[in-house]
């Protein structure tokens, strides 16, 4: 069993330079994610949500601030942190099985590794597709493989960068249920970036609303609904309305509630 630790973002700022013009993307972002917590970040498009995940995973570095895991500077190891991108990004020349094992450190698989891979293939429900190539899978199935590849090294923190954004509505709902189940089995800390308000409420313990650029945390909304969650429950809709208000004026909200 892995030891989950608290992920802390301290005073994170990030600026880009486009033709000598400084553009502030993130401005003083502070966030603590408890061990095993599921936190979603939503915000207007282009606000820098994905940039934040890039900083945490180490694909880019922050202009200021620090990222701590369990009180120490985050080490970029696959045991600490993993990511699922919006596109599955599988290698088309590898089978499903080999794409997943690419997430492991060693090429030589021990017996335990092999068992673990089988367990993860089962976890994402692709038992009969282990030898298939990515081009033979649907978008949803590809994304499952990508999740298994990120989970195979048992990261303490899993980052999800709009992982279901490219899927159709029905598959997306299906995957949201899957990710809840996977989170409950794997017990990772999950940080999800999404633009889907329903998805954020359905999945998370807390929803973080980001402001426009330069992005900073505008509001933190705890979601204290029992799981499995009913997307049409009164409390769910109330929360949804509350989050909509962060993005639109009262008048623009296109629905009202009559109970």
């Amino acid at each position, binding site marked *: 069993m892995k030891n989950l630790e608290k992920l802390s973002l301290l005073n994170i700022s990030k600026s880009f330079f486009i033709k000598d013009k400084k553009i502030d993307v993130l401005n003083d972002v502070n966030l603590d994610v408890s061990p095993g917590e599921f936190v979603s970040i939503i915000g207007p498009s282009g606000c820098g949500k994905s940039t934040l995940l890039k900083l945490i*995973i*180490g*694909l880019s570095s922050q202009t200021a601030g620090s990222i701590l895991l369990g009180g120490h500077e985050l080490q*970029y*190891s*696959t045991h600490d942190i*993993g*990511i699922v*991108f919006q*596109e599955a*990004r599988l*290698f*088309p*020349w*590898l089978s499903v099985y080999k794409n997943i094992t*690419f*997430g492991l*450190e060693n*090429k030589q698989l021990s017996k335990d590794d092999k068992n673990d891979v089988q367990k993860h293939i089962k976890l994402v429900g692709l038992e009969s597709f282990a030898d*298939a*190539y*990515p*081009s*033979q899978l649907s978008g949803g199935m590809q994304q499952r493989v990508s999740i298994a*590849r990120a989970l195979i*090294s048992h990261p303490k923190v899993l980052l999800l960068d709009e992982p279901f954004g490219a899927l159709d509505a029905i598959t997306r709902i299906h995957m949201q249920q899957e990710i809840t189940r996977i989170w409950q089995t794997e017990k990772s800390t999950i940080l999800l970036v999404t633009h889907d308000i329903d998805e954020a409420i359905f999945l998370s313990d807390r929803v973080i609303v980001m402001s426009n650029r330069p992005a900073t945390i505008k509001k933190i909304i705890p979601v204290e609904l029992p799981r499995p969650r009913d997307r049409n429950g009164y409390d769910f809709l109330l929360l949804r309305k509350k989050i909509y208000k962060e993005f639109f004026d009262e008048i623009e909200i296109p629905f009202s509630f009559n109970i």
Partner: protein
Amino acid sequence: MKKIYLWFTENYLSIIVPLILLLIWESCSRFNLIETKFLPSPSWIIKEFFILLSNGELVRNLLISIIRVAEGFFIGVSLGIIVGIQVALNKNLQKSVRFIFGILRPIPVIAWIPVLILWLGIDESSKIAAISIGSFWSVLVSVVQAIRNVDKKYLEVAKVLRKDYKTTMLDVILPSTLPEIFTGIRIGIDVAWRSVIAAELIAASAGIGYMIMYARELFQIDIVLVGVFSIGLTGIVIEELVKMAERHLLRWNTNIYQEEVTRKI
């Protein structure tokens, strides 16, 4: 049987048109409309082909040429891939060789042959060198291009999974560039096959090019033509072999093997 029938209905023109042309050629020779001393009839050439096939002359010379191609091509492709990777990944090296390669690349292999003969003599090594040069450039260009086009998203995956340089190179960059490298290899083998003929026509003591030149000196036009056409036939066989290798190595690539992949599911 049904399969053959279906294939034929799709492709009958590719068969019938050449047959008609051969028929016209044959009858022109029969009715003395063309001078058979300069252009023998197809039936005569085919007869000569079987004579040369049965006395082993044709096979022996073809094999010599094919072995030369295999050796030179192997050297050219290996060098092309190694140098290509270095050039693609090293910005300074890229700048250093830009003009050198720019000048050397457009030189046709045939222009190198006199130089190579002076340096290496007229035996095997000069021919192998010529073939290597020919295939080197086409592979080099496609490798450099392919590495430049590697999807950054794949590289990010390698990075977030904390893969080292060697793993990224061998398990991500190389396989993702393989389809484009294969295009280079296909062009390369074509160039190699042309180069060997050119080299043998200029100076050789064996090989299909030599066979053609020798027959020309004896004014055996039929043997010359058998030689010329067997170059074409061998070219087709080589191309098919490369395609087979490509299909096997790149079976994940749906672009080249659409039906097979979907059929498997």
